[in-house]
């Protein structure tokens, strides 16, 4: 098996296992209260990290580029109670615009 297929097969199998593990082992029954208090905070913690990394993350560095004004514009749209679709479109348009002007 060559390098490409080794990577494809190993990454796929490991990913399927990582994704499946929690739901296969823990699914279908409620967690103990202390644990569910912890699990309930996974969503905000991970979402916050995803926002941060997708806005400022570079190749092992923090980068301020056209994504930041796009996400700030999205924050304003959220504050104005815009629907998610509009929020996403605003972010893309502002980022594309800033990139076109500065690129």
């Amino acid at each position, binding site marked *: 098996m060559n390098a490409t297929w080794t990577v494809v097969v190993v990454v796929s199998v490991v990913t399927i296992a990582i994704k499946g593990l929690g*739901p296969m082992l823990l699914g279908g029954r409620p967690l103990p209260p202390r644990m569910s208090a912890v699990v309930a905070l996974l969503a905000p913690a991970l979402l916050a990290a995803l926002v941060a990394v997708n806005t400022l993350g570079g190749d092992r560095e923090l980068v301020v580029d056209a994504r930041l004004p796009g996400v700030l514009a999205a924050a304003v749209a959220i504050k104005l109670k815009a629907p998610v679709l509009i929020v996403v479109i605003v972010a893309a348009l*502002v980022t594309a615009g800033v990139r076109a002007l500065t690129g």
Partner: protein
Amino acid sequence: MTEPSGGRTHRDGVRAVVPLAVAVVGFGVSFGVLARAAGMGSVAPIVMSLATFAGSAQFAAASILGSGGTVVASITAAVLLNARYGPIGVSVAPSLSGGWWSRFLHAQLTVDESWAISAEGDGRFNPKVLLGAGVTLYAAWVTGTVLGVAFGDVIGDPSTWGLDAAFPALFLALLVPQLRDRRAVGATAVGAAIAIVLTPFTPAGVPIIAASLACLLGLGKRDETPPEEAGR
């Protein structure tokens, strides 16, 4: 539009994720182009999208192979990036009530976007929304990959269209309704801080898994529930 309710269906999941699916097709095309350029051929990238369904990990694996990196480096980067699906899977698990095969299917269709859209905001996830959004994103990702492999650079770089900003914007839009009490706000602040501080010092993927540790704020803080929540 994303009023939390138990009544959302598969169709709501599809509808909510369509704008993101457009962006995902764009990135699927990029992955197809990059993977071909990295010498992965045309079949392997498509098989990878079908079997792995995790964009950032696939990009990392392909770009490392393309720049002459080793198989081990490529696999390690991809696995680190996908390690967040461990805690994400744990967060979804209590909301999945079907048999093991149903839970397995829902788990495989869980990606950042379908997971975030299916959140009800109270720690629960809607399995129907997860499935509808997940299938839509899967179709978009695989279609994009096939187009990228087949038509190469006819279609431009999705970042020209600002599509890379669509993802953090979505995550932010889905984060805000989660900020219902002090603990959620605390987990958000600590999670973001961990991710930002670690980004320059650790391989990609590590900052996000490490940020999941912010959920430990949920331990032993029951008696500090803010007054407005005390009546529950």
